[in-house]
Each structure stands twice: as structure tokens, then as C-alpha cells.
């Protein structure tokens, strides 16, 4: 390290051609103000997510394995046993919306964990020095997580369709499905960002992330109707946003009885609360 490889003689060079073409870098851009900032930042974060997925889709495929196994092994088996009262729906059909919600939730929670990586890598730090309010940054991240989860949901829906699950192809209903997936994922990504803001280190967050995903899944109506649960589990399921997401997905995809109004209200409120909590805790990650 003590000796630089021979460089050309100093003093004999022109400034590089670059110097002549920097005119645009002299003009500061006109700032967006007011309500326009939030959608612009959400778009920016979503674009990044799409670009990353374009370069590397392996995660999309590897994460499709688990839901496929759930549907094939668990779904097919329990369809045969008929142990779970689904109100006449074949169990695999009943299960499919639950698995869609589950895989979206896993993606979202992991996405929140990634924010610790981004903090450690300095990427988050730099974004915090841009004219982006913290809530806009978090909202951007939350909806980017929703977008990623939505792509995952499409993969799972295709798998389910291949397994013969009878789902709607009504575009309006599918739009509702997309909204439910995005809102639920926004909430779950903010949940893990908030936990990140509390525990601050990667290792602890990984542990907690692993510890909460399965309970959230089992304490919901994803695998079985709330009615068959013991009382305490019903209570947990009732405060678990995943239950509302699954209820909405089931209603929309299968046409089973559901409470769409309540479901979407809860999901929207949960997302807003999640974004608020995560924004408030983000400062701890920046410190």
C-alpha cells in the first residue's frame, strides 16, 4: 500500500471531457411540495423494487416452494380427510386464500427486516438525507413491500389454479384481492420495521421475525375457521389483521360469506397505524 502504481505525470492533463457536460448539474430541481411528495416517494420505492426483481427473480421462485407444499400436501390431505368444517367448500379451495395471505405476510415481514440491512449498509442513511419525510419513506417502503407481496401472490394464485382451485376471474374482484394483499403487506412490513426500531440489531430482529410469523399464521383463520378455535385463540385471531385479510381474500376469490367492508376498514386502519408507528421509530435506526 505504500507505493502507488505509476500514474501519468501530473500537470500535463486536460480536465476530463465530463467537465464540459455538467450543465444540468448546476440547476437544482423544483421541489415537489405538499401532498405530491408522498405518492412520488411511494412510486420511487416501488420502482426500485421492480428493478431489483427484474435483475434477480430467484426469491420469487424459491418463496413459491413453501406455499406450493402447503397446498399440495396439507391441502390435498385435508381435503380427503374432511376434518375441517369449511361449509361445503373443498378444503384446498378454503386453504388457498390463507396460503396467499401467508406467503404475502412472510414476504412483508422479511422486507421489514431488510431495512436493518439497509441501515447497516448505509443505504437507509442516504435516503434519510433526501427531502423525504420519514413517514413518506416508510410509506414508500411499505407499499414497495406490498408490490413485492402482490407479485408473490400472483405466483401462488397460479399454483392454486393449477391444482384445480376454483377461483373467480372477475377483474374487479381480483383488484380487490390486490388491494387486500397490498394493505396487509404494508401493515406487516411496518410491523417488522417497528420491531427493528425497537430491537435495533439484525440478529435480534431475525429471531423475533421468525418467532412471530408462525403464531400470526396459526392464530388466524388461514387454516381453519375461527369457530373451531378455543376461546383464547379466537380472541387473538380477532385482533390479528391476517384474519381480516384472509376473510377478504376468501370472500373475493371464492365467493364465500365474508365481511368485506369491515375487512378493508381494518386493513386500511392497520396500515396507517403501522406506517405511523414505524415512522416514529425510524429515528432510532438512524442514530
Amino acid at each position, binding site marked *: *500500500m*505504500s*507505493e*502507488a*502504481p*505509476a*500514474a*501519468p*505525470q*501530473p*500537470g*500535463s*492533463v486536460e*480536465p*476530463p*471531457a*465530463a*467537465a*464540459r*457536460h*455538467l*450543465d*444540468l*448539474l*448546476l*440547476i*437544482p*430541481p*423544483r*421541489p*415537489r411540495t405538499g401532498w405530491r411528495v408522498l405518492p*412520488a*416517494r411511494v*412510486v*420511487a420505492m416501488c*420502482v*426500485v423494487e421492480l*428493478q*431489483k426483481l427484474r*435483475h*434477480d427473480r430467484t426469491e420469487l421462485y424459491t418463496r413459491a416452494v413453501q406455499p406450493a407444499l402447503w397446498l399440495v400436501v396439507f391441502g390435498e390431505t385435508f381435503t380427503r380427510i374432511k376434518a375441517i368444517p369449511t361449509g361445503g367448500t373443498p378444503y384446498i379451495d378454503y386453504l388457498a386464500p390463507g396460503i396467499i395471505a401467508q406467503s404475502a405476510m412472510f414476504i412483508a415481514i422479511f422486507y421489514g427486516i431488510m431495512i436493518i440491512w439497509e441501515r447497516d*449498509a*448505509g*443505504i437507509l*442513511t*442516504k*435516503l*434519510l*438525507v*433526501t*427531502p*423525504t*419525510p420519514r413517514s413518506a419513506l416508510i410509506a414508500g417502503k411499505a407499499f414497495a413491500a406490498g408490490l413485492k407481496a402482490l407479485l408473490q401472490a400472483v405466483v401462488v394464485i397460479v399454483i392454486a389454479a393449477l391444482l384445480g382451485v376454483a377461483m373467480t376471474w372477475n377483474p374487479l374482484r381480483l383488484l380487490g384481492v390486490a388491494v387486500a394483499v397490498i394493505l396487509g403487506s404494508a401493515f406487516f412490513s411496518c410491523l417488522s420495521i417497528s420491531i427493528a426500531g425497537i430491537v*435495533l*440489531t439484525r440478529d435480534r430482529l431475525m429471531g423475533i421475525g421468525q418467532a412471530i410469523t408462525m403464531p400470526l399464521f396459526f392464530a388466524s383463520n388461514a387454516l381453519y375457521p375461527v369457530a373451531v378455535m378455543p376461546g383464547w385463540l379466537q380472541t387473538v385471531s380477532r385482533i390479528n389483521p391476517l384474519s381480516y385479510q384472509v376473510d377478504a381474500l376468501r370472500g373475493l376469490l371464492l365467493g364465500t360469506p365474508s365481511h368485506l367492508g369491515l375487512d378493508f376498514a381494518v386493513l386500511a386502519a392497520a396500515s396507517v397505524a403501522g406506517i405511523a408507528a414505524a415512522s416514529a421509530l425510524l*429515528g432510532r435506526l*438512524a*442514530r
Partner: protein
Amino acid sequence: MTSEDPVRPVPGAAPGQSLHAAPSRHTAPSRHTAGAPTGRPTAPDPDRTPDPDRTSAPDRTSAPDPAPLPDALACRGLRYTFGETRAVDGVDLSVRPGEVFGLLGPNGAGKTTAIRCITTLLPVPTGMVRVFGHDAARERMAVRRLLGYVPQQLSADAGLTGRENVALFARVFDIPRRERAARVGQALEAVGLTDAANRLASTYSGGMIRRLELAQALVSAPRLLMLDEPTIGLDPIARTTVWEHINVVRAATGMTVLVTTHYMDEAEQYCDRVALMHRGRIRALGTPAELRSDLRARRAQAARTTTTTPSAPRTSASSDVEPTLEDVFRDVAGTGLDEQSGDFRDVRSTRRTATRVG
């Protein structure tokens, strides 16, 4: 070093100059300022007293118009503590528009903390930090719009191409779609990454990532570029290249640059003025030439010479040898730059531990 790093010299860079050895003794004012259109000086300080702790700095350029602009950066009694650690302990600084200002000090001196206060990453009370007249506590967004920030860590997103990395920052700085591609292209060209722009950043060398980060910071046309140890961990050619691009951009845009480093030679070579920082305080401030000549004067006057420490045998300190910035630092801080400098990973891991405990 990959072949993508173009090897271009910097005027005034001595080839074969070593990383840690004493800097070359060429005189200060011959550097990059020659081509700079906006080296706007403020009023020169006429009677400069060689005060050992605080050296005021007259401007050495002869441009006549003292601009009425506010300081690019003004820190007044800047303080920040992490629990018990007083990381920044009462720093007063004024960075003039258009200059390259170096904040120089060993690891742990508090440079990064000071930068993080200025960039609004760490909360500071009102009145401590002003960027072009905007208060960092009350006008965060306005301050952020004026700043281009390159953190100490290499921090490009490895999952995106170089162009996408820069485009992200164009988007979050509200550059309209119709200008975006052109601006991103110019920023990439300014740092010599046009050819590598469509490759994933994960394939870049350290020097290329640094230049990519520079492009990310430049794309929003900042007026104050904040570079935290921009050359840390780079090989000599990559260091030279990074500095060359900084200088070209500064010459072309008149941006103000605040750079931290613990490499004395870089400060000496590339900075108009430097502040020597030690344990959270500024121990000396001025042009490199002034700091050196002040030390010479002090030595001659007091016949008090700095003693040679075993770890730095090159400092054969005697009053008739032109002192280096390193000698100045030793003189004002009572310790060499290298003495307490661990690897920067050490600092980070201590920091994590500190966070955990605190």
C-alpha cells in the same frame, strides 16, 4: 483495482506518493482552484496572530469581490453526545461558498458525528448548524435539498445497476421525468461511469462504488457536497481518481465541498482550508500552508520542538525543516494521527456495542 478505473492523474498529485507517509511538500496554492470559476472568498482577515489553538484564515486567492452570500455552512458550538461520550464537543466552523474544506482527524475524533449532525441525521438544537443560512433543526427539508451526502461506508445498492442507483436519487429529489435520464447521464459521466452504468453495482470495485455514490450525490445539483472519508479503504489509484472527479465537478459547478479524512496528504493536497479535529474539538484551522508556517513560527519562537515519537520516525522534527500537517496535528493535539486510529470496522463494532449497551 479493476480495469474500469480510469487512471487519470490529478494536477499536483505526486506519483508514487505513499498512503500514510509524509505528504509531499509542494506549496499549497497551485492546486485545482486554477480552473474553478467560483472560488468566492469572503473578506480576508488582515492581522493573523499565530494562535496555537485557533488559527484564523485569510484567503489566499486574489479574487476581488467578497460575496454577500451566507456561509455555505456555519456551526456554532456544535455538540453531540452519545451517552457519556462527547463525540462532538463545541465545534465552531464556517465553510465559505466554493471552497474545499477538510475536516481532518484520527478515527474517533468526531468527524462522522459532526457530519451526521449537519446532514440532519442526528437531531441538533436550533441555531447550531446553518447551511446557506437555513437552520438544520427548523428547516430540515430545505437543508437536505442543498446537500449531497456520501457517507463513510460504501453504500450503493448492490441489487441495482449504477444507473438505477443514481435514478433513485433523481426521483427522491423531485427531478421531473423529462429531465431525469439526461441528468442521470451527466452525473454518471461526471464520475466516469458511463460505460459501466448498466452493470449491477455488485460488480463494481470499491473506487467505482465511491464514484457512483458521488454521482448519486451530484444528480440533485447540491450546493454543499458532504463527503465522509471518501477515499477510506481505496487503493492509491482509486483514491486519486475519486479526488480527480471531485475536483472536476467542483471546478465545473462551483459546489462547496466539506470533506473529512484522516489522510494528511489528501488534506494538504486538495483542501483550500482544513480544520484539525481531535476528541470532538477543532484544534487548528487554516490553509495547510498557514498551519505549517504557523508551526514553523512557533517552533522558531519558542525553540520548543515536538519530540519524535517512536511510531513515526519520519518526523525528524527540527525547526529548520518545513513541518508537515502531521507535525501540526501532533503539535496541537499532543498526539499523532496514527496513534489511536484503529481500523474503521473497529469503530463501527464499538459503536454497535455502545448502541447495545446504551
